[in-house]
């Protein structure tokens, strides 16, 4: 395809992405290299409903002047990346020097907000992604063996977890897993422990979030695999059968290799989505036990005093994290690409 034809075909899509994603990424990157100007504060008398006091106030005009000169704030280089809220180099080296063993070192690191968020994010990503793939595949195989009549409703039901808005879905589930909710009390009964509460322990909260993650994303893997199964070449399967291959052998040596590209695609999307896990943490009020990188960004932007530079820095670190995670997939795509 000629360059000019290619250009015109890609233009609408590229333009949309350039304007609404590339430009913001550039601005976020610039923002992550800056901090706010030194605030001009002054002591003034403040009278509110109940009493008067003398308090510090920002002098808005003086601050506005500073921003007139340098709208982005003070250039800070990589300071934001190195400070305690992010990679925390100084704090990590202190912990390293003081820790007597790996356990203590890990505890010290885990006390720092970025590493705490990163730990859960990575654990979630690497546990949920493979489970989603396995689970989705099993459902797809099971559904595929049913008669056409019941397939429609079953596909709909299987898609439900993906379709119900996570925001509300987790609110209802959050209630069901309460110690007095239907799932929570069933668990207590099954475990024989009447004081069991999923919300009070960090370990159980982690498990709960991951189970939710698998439940929510399995339908995606299911749909993709199910469709893939329809295209498995029949003649190959039949000749395998004639050769006396068992059902398991047929899945192992014919179906699975055929579905490999699909698995890669699901893995790619799921790695990325799970690395940005956010909604279940808010939905399940799980901040005390588990935080993620996306949650950290939300937290920086949601407070009364927003920390936009920190939010920008964490966003950049998220992108870098995703890029690292996806390297194996990228290398493979590169090889495929050169082959074609």
């Amino acid at each position, binding site marked *: 395809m*000629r*360059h000019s*034809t290619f250009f015109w*075909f890609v233009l*609408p*899509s590229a333009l*949309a*992405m350039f304007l*609404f*994603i*590339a430009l*913001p*990424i550039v601005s*976020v990157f610039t923002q992550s290299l800056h901090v706010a100007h030194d605030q001009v504060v002054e002591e003034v008398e403040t009278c509110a409903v109940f009493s008067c006091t003398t308090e510090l106030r920002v002098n808005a005009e003086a601050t506005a002047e500073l921003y007139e000169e340098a709208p982005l704030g003070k250039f800070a280089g990589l300071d934001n990346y190195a400070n305690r809220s992010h990679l925390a180099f100084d704090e990590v080296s202190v912990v390293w020097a003081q820790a007597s063993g790996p356990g203590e070192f890990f505890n010290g690191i885990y006390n720092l907000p970025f590493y705490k968020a990163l730990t859960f994010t990575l654990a979630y990503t690497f546990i949920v992604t493979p489970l989603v793939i396995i689970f989705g595949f099993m459902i797809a195989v*099971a559904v*595929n*063996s049913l008669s056409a009549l019941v*397939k*429609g*409703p079953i596909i*709909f*039901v*299987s898609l*439900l977890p*993906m*379709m*119900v*808005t996570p*925001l*509300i*879905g987790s*609110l*209802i589930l959050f*209630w069901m897993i309460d110690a*007095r909710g*239907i799932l929570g*009390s069933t668990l207590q009964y099954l475990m024989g422990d009447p004081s069991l509460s999923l919300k009070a322990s960090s370990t159980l909260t982690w498990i709960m979030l991951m189970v939710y993650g698998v439940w929510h994303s399995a339908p995606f893997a299911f749909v993709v695999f199910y*469709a893939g199964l*329809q*295209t*498995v070449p029949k003649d190959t399967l039949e000749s395998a059968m004639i050769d006396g291959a068992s*059902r398991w052998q047929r899945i192992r040596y014919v179906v699975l290799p055929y579905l490999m*590209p*699909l698995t890669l*695609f*699901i893995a790619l999307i799921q790695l*990325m989505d799970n*690395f*940005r896990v*956010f*909604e279940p943490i808010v939905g399940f009020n799980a901040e005390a036990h588990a935080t993620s990188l*996306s949650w950290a*960004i939300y937290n920086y932007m949601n407070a009364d005093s927003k920390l*936009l530079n920190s*939010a*920008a820095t964490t*966003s950049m670190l998220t*992108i870098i994290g995703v*890029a690292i995670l996806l390297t194996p997939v*990228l290398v493979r795509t590169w090889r495929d690409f050169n082959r074609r």
Partner: protein
Amino acid sequence: MSQAADRRSPILVFASISFLLIWLLMASFPFLWTLWGSFKVQGDFFSKADWSYAIFGVRTIAETGAPFTGAGYYGAWVQEEFWRAVINTGVVVVFVVIISLTFGALGGYALSRSNYRYVFWLLMLALIFRAMPHITLVSGYLLPFFEWNLWGHLSTTVIVLVAINQPFTLWMLHSFFQNIPKDLDESAMVDGCTRFQAFRYAIVPVMWPGIVTTGLFSFLLAYNDFAVTALLLTKENQTMVPKIAGFLGSTQTEGNVMFAVASVVSATAPLFVLVIFFQRQIVSGLTAGAVKG
């Protein structure tokens, strides 16, 4: 795989069926629970005393005199005018799907037919774009949108959702087009068609299965989005999800929570129709290879 030729041991059939039943129960139970509970009062559905209240409606009988109440639905649809949000969602979803697919089909087609290095880098760039957390993007849009008076309109939200969804659409359609034999459009060009005509007359007729599947995912994204719609729309233009979140509010008012529950059930109904309607296309669409990396 035709099942007639495929004999299976009864144990395997049993295992497969029971696994499926467990999955169906897991997938549908929270929803069925919500459907049943949406006809109760808050004191039952979110009972602190005994979860079985949600089944038998003890408080519902005490407060309304009957075991079922439509108050949640009445409140959501009549009092809070949930139908406005439904219309807005309809508008947003239709346009997002159409525009996403148009952009994505053109771009994906070109990416699948060009062998230059920049194609690879474009695809990689799209992946990196997809990695950007949405909250960061949206908070970045706010100020320029307010400055240029773009904020609050449905059209702005549509464009933003299209852009955010473009990387995924592009990837999916690109791999789908790769599976359509090149001979098809190349022979059309030999016959004297331009590249666009070849696309229009040779490719468009055979691309529908892939489009339907990709469309389903675009649809779900636009339908379920909260991060973008909650911050970019005015009250009148609100779509369903932020509207439902609004019923919960920062301090939950008694009764309003049930509006949210009733709305969630209402919002799932059109999806049911859609899936039943497009079921075969979705399947054949993916079949045609959308996902063959």
